[in-house]
């Protein structure tokens, strides 16, 4: 196999679409491959604690489904998803104040597919998406693949800052560009762990309506609040201008890959067609399993079980951070969901520190991945959803030790200069 002309080991390299240009492997991917090992306390991925589900009940239910309804559950179905499930989904959304018709609901393969189809029907290369700073890494990846540019808007402890949103919209307009939508995770934000307060919700909607900006409301964690009933969703306040994404990944099981999108009728039609082009139809068996669970099992009791479990884990995480993290670090105090967003002392780069953390047998996600513009060096996301409280305490303790070592290194080199001759 002489290759005197050289080979790039991929005979198709000159044929890929422009949107693949950023698709390379990375050191971070290599590090995460190690992070899945049991020796390492994984506080990186936002995996739900599915072991808290009544697995025997689900096994029996699924078996019965296949034996009694296998001709449907193992068959193709309509691209919009199962009628009964779409009705039940409307019942789920009603818990957050949304009044919706099953006709406007499209079932998707997780809400990640909903993000993909919404991006596909709205985004042209060079369009702008406005998103919180930081923002969900999976959404940023989707927007990037559609060659859109993300403009971040500041959050504070009360969520997205309305004035910053106004400024971003004005900046986009001044540049002669077009923002297609605001992407927002209003409840128990991933990764920031922040919730958009009630007082700001109408204002954010009004700003977007005035600017003709669609709102893409991504709400996988809304029912997982620790303090009282859920806040009414953005979509519950208006019937137009909001595309709502929901998911059973966090309230039931991530592995069934069932999410949904609620959209105005015209948008919905395009979503169905775009979705059919990807998957023909959402997974029938998964939809039947979810529908059975919603219809015949006390699923809201199960959500309560999850809430209490995650509350205990959040408490373990926050207590351990307070007990062991050094001065100069800070973190958010989530009132629901899966994540704590940590800001490290000045000079520490969370991505550079990750190999040390893996060697210290603890893993997190560095903050830079949650920004499209290189911010977030001092940040990291801790997910407390999967490890048990004792493991979380140990994980945070390990991370504090890693951070102490890193601070020593940064103290040696961190001034960015090389002394006398610099």
């Amino acid at each position, binding site marked *: 196999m*002489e290759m005197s002309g050289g080979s790039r080991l991929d005979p198709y*390299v000159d044929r890929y679409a422009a949107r693949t240009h950023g698709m390379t492997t990375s050191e971070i991917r290599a590090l995460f491959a*190690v992070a899945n090992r049991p020796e390492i306390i994984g506080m990186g991925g936002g995996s739900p604690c599915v072991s808290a589900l009544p697995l025997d009940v689900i096994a029996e239910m699924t078996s019965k489904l296949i034996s009694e309804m296998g001709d449907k559950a193992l068959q193709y179905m309509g691209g919009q998803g199962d009628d009964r499930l779409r009705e039940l989904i409307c019942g789920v959304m009603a818990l957050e104040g949304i009044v919706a018709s099953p006709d406007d609901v499209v079932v998707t393969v997780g809400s990640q597919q909903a993000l993909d189809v919404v991006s596909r029907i709205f985004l042209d290369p060079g369009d702008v998406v406005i998103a919180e700073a930081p923002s969900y890494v999976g959404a940023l990846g989707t927007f990037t693949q559609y060659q859109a540019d993300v403009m971040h808007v500041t959050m504070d402890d009360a969520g997205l800052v309305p004035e910053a949103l106004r400024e971003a919209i004005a900046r986009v307009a001044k540049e002669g560009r077009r923002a297609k939508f605001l992407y927002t995770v209003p409840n128990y934000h991933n990764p920031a762990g922040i919730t958009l307060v009630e007082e700001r919700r109408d204002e954010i909607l009004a700003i977007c309506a005035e600017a003709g900006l669609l709102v893409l409301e991504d709400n996988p964690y809304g029912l997982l609040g620790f303090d009282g009933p859920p806040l009414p969703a953005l979509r519950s306040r208006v019937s137009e201008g909001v595309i709502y994404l929901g998911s059973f990944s966090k309230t039931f099981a991530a592995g069934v890959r069932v999410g949904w999108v609620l959209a105005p009728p015209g948008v919905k039609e395009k979503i169905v067609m775009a979705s059919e082009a990807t998957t023909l139809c959402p997974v029938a068996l998964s939809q039947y399993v979810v529908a059975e669970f919603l219809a015949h099992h006390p699923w809201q009791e199960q959500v309560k079980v999850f809430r209490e479990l995650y509350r205990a884990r959040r408490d373990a995480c926050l207590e351990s951070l307070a007990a062991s993290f050094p001065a100069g670090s800070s973190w958010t105090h989530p009132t629901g969901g899966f994540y704590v967003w940590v800001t490290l002392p000045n000079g520490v780069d969370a991505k550079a520190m990750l190999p040390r953390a893996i060697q210290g047998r603890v893993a997190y996600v560095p903050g830079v991945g949650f920004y499209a513009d290189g911010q977030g060096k001092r940040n990291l996301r801790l997910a407390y959803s999967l490890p048990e409280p004792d493991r979380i305490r140990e994980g945070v303790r390990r991370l504090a030790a890693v951070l102490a070592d890193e601070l020593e290194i940064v103290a040696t080199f*961190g001034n960015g200069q*090389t002394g006398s001759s610099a």
Partner: protein
Amino acid sequence: MSDLGHVLVLAGGVSFEREVSLSSGRRVADALTSLGVEVELVDVDAHLLPRLMNDPPAAVFVAVHGIEGEDGALRDALDLSGVPYVGATGSAARLAFDKAVAKAVVARAGLRTPASVALQHAAFRDLGGAVLLDRVVERLGLPLVVKPAHGGSALGVSVVRDVKDLPQAMVVCYSYDSVALLERHVSGTELAISVIDDGAGPIALPAVEIEALSGTFDYAARYTAGMTEYHVPARLDEALAKAAADVAVTAHRALGLRDLSRTDVIVTADGDIEYLETNVSPGMTATSLLPLAAASVGLDLGTLCRDLLQQAAVRGRSTPGAPA
């Protein structure tokens, strides 16, 4: 069917090169399976040693990269378990895996290697980071390559062209390893030369010339097909190709290695061959260099691995801790 008997391919582990290693291991296992060898791909964890004791394989192929596969400990553990394996002994692997030690060893054997200094973080902390870095820059000049003294796949490696980027490169490097190797950057043609010893003495396979299209052969360039152009054999004249092959064989011998290795060198514009490092567990992935070199001379990967396993099985176990 092969008469080799049951063999294991070890891959994975907890090193930073776990993903690469799993990919290498699968490729080796598939290649062996296609020849009818009874092979099993096994991760390196607490189940390994009991497994080896209860059901000893005829031989083991170590496709574990990074600290677990190459620092010698796993190989010593295999020796302690009485299991023969392909590749360097623990003590030889230890020499090669420490880039600073390996450079000193091959320099004594007459090879050229870029000027460098290996420093623990404690040296910077105790003597003053900025002052010591100044001395390094004065002595070695810029650009400078900062790399973990132990490790592979270019993880934690930075090429520093501007002195203001040096502190961050040090921070990144020390996150991977407690010892940093600061090496004078040498420009030229980058070559990887694989060495195979099937019992008749080490011979070099054709050098693979690496042309990273981004300019830097970093992790992404190594493992994303399409980002690097490889030339096999390298575009060198015959004399230079022979000299490069000699360097790899000399390094293999000087470090006391067995069976297989891969040595990375730079050929400068003046025709000097500068030694960089030697890998005792070379990558075997679809974008790795040893399989590419083997294919260029019609050497089937499965046949190569099977023959080396056969050789290991006949050789039997080594004495743990024996000098390289």
